[in-house]
């Protein structure tokens, strides 16, 4: 049993790292725009298909990850500019934004389906494994881990140490006050959606690598985990998102090792529902006010 856990630990950590990368992007959108963005998952689906087309055309996988990140970033800025900002300007409440992003997400997914069809695809991997005790990890997983950790840490560093990050945090805390203090809130929002789109795109490709074979709708299994991780960490808190991602990632890995892999999504969603019922502001928030 311990051995089973140790074997799955390697891939559990990789999945958790990808989850952390993706959740940070998701939660940043909520932080700066107050939008629970349900297009996020569908954008990951777009990323998978674009990356697959690029690699089939002979582009190296890791170059494709970067290109896809940029492409999804551009689409995200379009979603923000064409849907989210106009609707917010009309005074749409948070749940109206949820319905709107839900609808746009379904439309994006349908567009991928119409363009690409329902076929199963999988990336060709480099292969090769490394061992660390009984923990086994493939070269691709090592790269995935490296990219995810690097991106997550650099987002954290930008938020923490730069003037830009300070302006973003000010926008998240109180947009009107930030605006009055000279922060260009609109620019901050656009740039944040761009950056989180890049995280979303890279996360989509990296998770497709972990899953093996994917279709236009494979994101539907991963996106609930992102929502769960974001909620567990407190929506809108990047630090909490990373912690939540590792909690959810390890809980699902544990559940699939101990119970059965068929139930891992049920368990993750159970955690989501339980946290929302018991600690709706997230596990790591100290005060309830």
């Amino acid at each position, binding site marked *: 049993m311990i051995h089973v856990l140790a074997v799955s630990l390697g891939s559990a950590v990789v999945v958790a790292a990808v989850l952390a990368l993706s959740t940070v992007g998701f939660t940043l959108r909520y932080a700066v725009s107050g939008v629970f963005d349900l297009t996020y998952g569908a954008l990951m689906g777009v990323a998978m298909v674009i990356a697959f087309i690029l690699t089939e055309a002979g582009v190296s996988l890791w170059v494709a990850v970067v290109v896809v990140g940029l492409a999804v970033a551009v689409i995200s800025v379009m979603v923000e500019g064409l849907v989210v900002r106009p609707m917010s300007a009309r005074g749409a409440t948070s749940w109206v934004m949820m319905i709107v992003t839900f609808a746009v997400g379904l439309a994006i997914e349908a567009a991928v389906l119409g363009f690409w069809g329902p076929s199963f695809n999988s990336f060709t991997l480099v292969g090769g494994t490394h061992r660390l005790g009984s923990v086994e990890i493939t070269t691709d997983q090592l790269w995935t881990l490296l990219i995810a950790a690097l991106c997550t840490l650099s987002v954290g560093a930008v938020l923490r140490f730069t003037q830009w990050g300070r302006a973003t945090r000010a926008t998240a805390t109180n947009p009107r006050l930030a605006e009055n203090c000279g922060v260009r809130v609109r620019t901050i929002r656009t740039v944040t959606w761009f950056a989180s789109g890049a995280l979303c795109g890279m996360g989509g490709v990296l998770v497709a690598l972990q899953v093996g074979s994917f279709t236009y709708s494979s994101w539907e299994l991963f996106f609930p985990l992102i929502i769960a991780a974001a909620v567990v960490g407190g929506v809108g808190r990047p630090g909490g998102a990373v912690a939540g991602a590792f909690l959810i990632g390890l809980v699902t890995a544990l559940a699939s090792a101990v119970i059965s892999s068929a139930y891992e999504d049920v368990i993750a*969603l159970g955690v989501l529902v339980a946290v929302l019922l018991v600690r709706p502001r997230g596990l790591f928030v100290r005060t309830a006010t």
Partner: protein
Amino acid sequence: MNGQTSDFIATGVLYALLFVIGSWGLNLQFDTAGIINFGYIMFEAVGAYTVAIFSLGKTGLSQGQQQAFVAFSLPFPLPIIVAVVVGAAFSAVIGAIVLRRVRQDQQAIVLLGMTLAALYFVEADPGFLNGSLGLSLIPEPFIGSNSASPGYEWAFVGGVAVLTVVCWLLVRATTESPFGRALRALRDNESGAEALGYGAFSLQLRAFVLGGALAALVGGIFAYFITTWAPASWGYAETFYFFTVVIVGGTSNLGGIVIGAMVVVGLQQGFEYLPDIGNSELGVALQTICASALMVAFLALRPRGILPERRHRVYEPDVRSTSSQPVPADPIRSSAG
């Protein structure tokens, strides 16, 4: 009219009627009580599975080599009645948990999470409700598993039409009753209504239960009509079509919702006739894109829908001051969110 066209029209009319009943139920929860139920389809699934296990029985299950955790073989009207009761009880439990503990904007996520968890659980455990294959060979009312003639199909549609009228009377009686007025008061001004002694929780819970019971009824009829019910029938995206009906037709306008249902079903059935151009899924894709675009356009440009909610009469001693009647809240700008 040849058989195929008749079949096509009967199916379209039936789907529209089911959309109408279901959307009235969703509207009771969504606009009248202010609960964003992204898991509405789960309550429909409860009704459908209940009809399946209460009419298949042990023999029906073994015929199709299916498994379920429980099975009874009841004659026709009983399974659908049980389905409505089970749907109401299920809604009462879920509603009591969700409404008491979670704020409005998080209710949507909780209910979505619950639906997905239920869906994945049913898929993962084949012994519970036959896993991802679902339950099939559900006997149809009166004829059992004999094949349905076109005449039978139209009789089925006629029966559902009668049921729709009954539901209309029920929903109307609810929204026009003191209970409905209290719910609207709560929606338009929560603290004001609570100051008058209306408790939000019990009122909202009752609306939630009524909506859930209607969803179960729709699911049960649906299971009877297509004689099968599987996880593929209740993907979370199905809920979206009910929201489209309500938003396009007009929130809290029962007639408007009928128009909304006709628009959505017209869209769905229309794309069935699309010629096959290389990609077999293009019709499905275009249908979803059109429905999404329609819904977003309505939310942005005409948030009260095709037929907006009627102003409700308010008793006022001075007849001349009727111009000061309260205007129903604009659904996208209401302060309740």
